């Protein structure tokens, strides 16, 4: 009967082992699921300078494409319109409260950048700057066009259009945005190298006081203007419209603009302005998120990614490769 007792014990052992097997089985499945979740539930905070406009729409679309590919949850925030540095910093700090895994940001000036870097550094977050020229340290990856170089390219194009001789006016937005300052520096540097070129003024032309067109109008009335370099879309549109109104279109006064909008492209086709220097905001947005994910994974990311610019004129506007950049592919 001790044999029976032994057999009883044996049966108990069997049951225990089978139970353990089932437990283990469910465990391994659990583990597999955990690992699947592990690095796919990434929260990234995307801080932008503003949310309206074709440029920023494209940035967001690029970021969204990357977020889909890398399974990232995006939290996009920006101050309304183009906020002051204080507003930008406020928005950034607010976004950090929600403990994102990484921050991808576009910031206008060093003050804001330093603020974000400080806040992000405290939280030990990977930081990726897009469309932001800066020398501030502590940023994992900076993805931007070399605005100084872009300014030079635009200026050289103007020189080419004017055949090396003429007076050129600059339209800025009057803010202390780093990108704008770099562009202006680049332009001035390139034009200074050309003996025949003179810069006749750098006029702030802000959308907020809607005086852009009168600025352009008084500029045209004051002196002979052969070319206008508009550092932002609003200024470019205002300049083109004013020139159209005054009948100076068709190349009588050459306009080169930075960035594009539908309105600007329409004016380009009407030859009211000659060249648009465009970036690839979709790619900037995409790479920003991608590099943030790579940094999160601990992979090496390039500290500086220089994006290309394109000079678009009426002739190459509808080239297939340019259509994709200029016209939003996915229409909402």
């Amino acid at each position, binding site marked *: 009967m001790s044999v029976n007792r032994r057999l009883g014990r044996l049966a108990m052992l069997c049951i225990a082992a089978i139970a353990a097997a089932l437990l283990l089985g469910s465990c391994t499945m659990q583990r597999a699921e955990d690992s699947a979740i592990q690095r796919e539930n990434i929260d990234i905070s995307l801080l932008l300078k503003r949310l309206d406009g074709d440029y920023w729409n494209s940035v967001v679309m690029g970021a969204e494409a990357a977020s889909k590919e890398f399974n990232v949850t995006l939290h996009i925030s920006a101050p309304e319109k183009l906020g002051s540095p204080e507003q930008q910093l406020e928005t950034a700090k607010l976004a950090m409260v929600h403990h994102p895994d990484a921050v991808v940001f576009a910031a206008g000036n060093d003050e804001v950048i330093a603020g974000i870097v400080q806040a992000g550094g405290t939280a030990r977050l990977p930081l990726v700057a897009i469309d932001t020229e800066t020398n501030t340290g502590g940023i994992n990856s900076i993805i931007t066009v070399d605005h100084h170089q872009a300014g030079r390219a635009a200026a050289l194009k103007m020189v080419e259009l004017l055949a090396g001789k003429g007076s050129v006016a600059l339209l800025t937005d009057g803010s202390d945005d780093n990108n704008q300052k770099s562009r202006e520096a680049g332009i001035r540097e390139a034009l200074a190298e050309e003996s025949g070129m003179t810069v006749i003024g750098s006029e702030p032309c802000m959308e907020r006081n809607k005086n852009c067109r009168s600025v352009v109008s008084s500029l045209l009335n004051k002196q002979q203007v052969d070319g206008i370099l508009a550092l932002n879309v609003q200024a470019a549109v205002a300049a083109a419209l004013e020139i159209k109104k005054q009948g100076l279109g068709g190349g009588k006064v050459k306009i080169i603009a930075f960035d594009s909008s539908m309105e600007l492209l329409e004016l380009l086709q009407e030859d009211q302005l000659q060249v648009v220097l465009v970036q690839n905001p*979709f790619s900037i947005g995409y790479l920003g998120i991608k590099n943030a994910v790579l940094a999160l994974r601990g992979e090496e990311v390039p500290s500086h990614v220089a994006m290309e610019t394109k000079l678009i004129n009426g002739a190459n506007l509808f080239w297939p490769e340019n259509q*994709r950049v200029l016209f939003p592919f996915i229409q909402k």
Partner: protein
Amino acid sequence: MRKRSIQFLISVALSVFSAAAIMMVSVLLYNKFSQTAETNALRNTQQVVDQVSYNLEDYIQGMSEIYGVIHDTISRSGDVNEEELRSQLNTIIGIRGEIVSLAVIGHDGEVMMSIPGVALKENLSLYNQRWFQSALQTPNHLSYSLPHVQNMYKMQYKWVVSLSKGITVARSGKTEHGVLLLDVNFNKINQLSSRVVLGKKGYVYIVDESAGNMVYHPQQQLIYAGLKSENVEQALKYTFGSFHDESGDEDKMITVQTIGNIGWKVVGVSFTDEIITTKRELNDYLLNLLLLLLVFVIAMSWLISRIIAHPIRQLEKSMKNVERGDFHTMTAIQGPLEVERLSTRFNLMVARIRELMQQIVVEQEAKRKYEFEALQSQINPHFLYNTLNTVVRMVGMNRNEEVVTTITSLSKLFRISLSKGKPMIPLASELEHARNYLIIQNIRFKNKFDYLFDVEEAALPSLSLKLILQPLLENAIMHGIEPSVDKGLITVRAWIEAGQVCLQVSDNGLGMSGEQLAALLTAEAGGTTKPSPASSVASGAGSGVGVRNVHERIRLFYGEPYGLQFESELEEGTTVTIRFPFKPADVEAEGRGGEG
């Protein structure tokens, strides 16, 4: 566990066998499962790609049918600028929301009609547009353009696919050649393709087969920006089917399906690592299962082997005890049936050994007793006294010759009796002893009997127990011859029969009754000192005791079937036969040497 112990052997054999079996099953299952997973993935991809192709083809078919209807409507109308035609066309276009615009363009590039009435660009040059060119080149063939931005209209830049074909229209009473353009929103195709998922990362793209231009790709913008690339060349080589693409950093499975009449290819891209992930998960699971089963099997085999081996070891321990001389040990009856039986047998065996040892003790005691008694009978003082008395008488009667004979026989008798104290002597000596005894007795009893020896030569070399004939002769003389009035005859025979030595003493005396016969041998062994009723009647020589002593000794030495056999009939005489195994005398020296 010691090496080569049953427990070790069973454990190892069971574990190895089970592990091998489990491993084999696992490998087979893994192969089968992973194959199925791969096949399923492939089939799934193919089905999805086929479905997308079918949907697109269906959609394009629908569009070309609408194009046909519009074409017919315009061709049949009297004038392109008729208001009735416009409303008709508006109705047709209204059915399909994705139709962006419709235009009839003259072969010189002038727009004759456009719906809806969106303002056209001022400096419009349609002549270089691809859709216009292809319509002019093949006027009767419906051309589909690649997705592009339609730039005919002011402030409207929609992504469209243009359907174009040569058309003959009536305008202001004249028949003119032109091109009919239908712009279809690309969003629909975009939607049809973008919702497709192949696994977690897989996707579908559409490529134009003539030029390899990308029609749709979920990451088209990244491809144009140079951030991504797609191996289109390889996909273009296939009309339909699947192949592996190992050119990129990730191993991909490409499935191609061509959409008829538009010249597009739907290409499904699924990632092999997703299938491999499934495989790896399966692999991990099976490996875990294998380990668990192995642990389980080892535990089980250890337990089973222990259940078997433990009682055997117990048994061994008991045997060791017996080996050491402890015959009172008892092994516990437990374990498997065989071991249980073995234990029972062992216990029985030990009990039997104990019994036998007990018996040996008893037998040895009896042997000593009988030997002692035999010794006693050798030097029976009564016999000696009688013989010496006879000798004295014979001396008195001057029968010197007889005295010499008697004394000689007596001396021989004692010499043989002693025979260096050995219990076994050659049969010849035993017969010699008997003869001397008979000589003495014959002289004593004044020729009251005759005696006769009938001995087979062959029997003489055999060994015999000492002094087994004397008590029988004594018995014959005392009980058979002496009481009889007639002269008696005692015959001593010896022969070999079936390897046995037969000694027979017969007399023609009074004989014995059945009762006497029975009493002679069955008298209580322990009560040897007490004379049996039969012998007590006779002279006080204790002859009954002597006969039984012979019988017991023979039995002790040779075993059960041997001993004395009496045949007796009253007034006829008694015959006693002794049988014992033949053993040559030379064997005796070593065979019985140790016996005390």
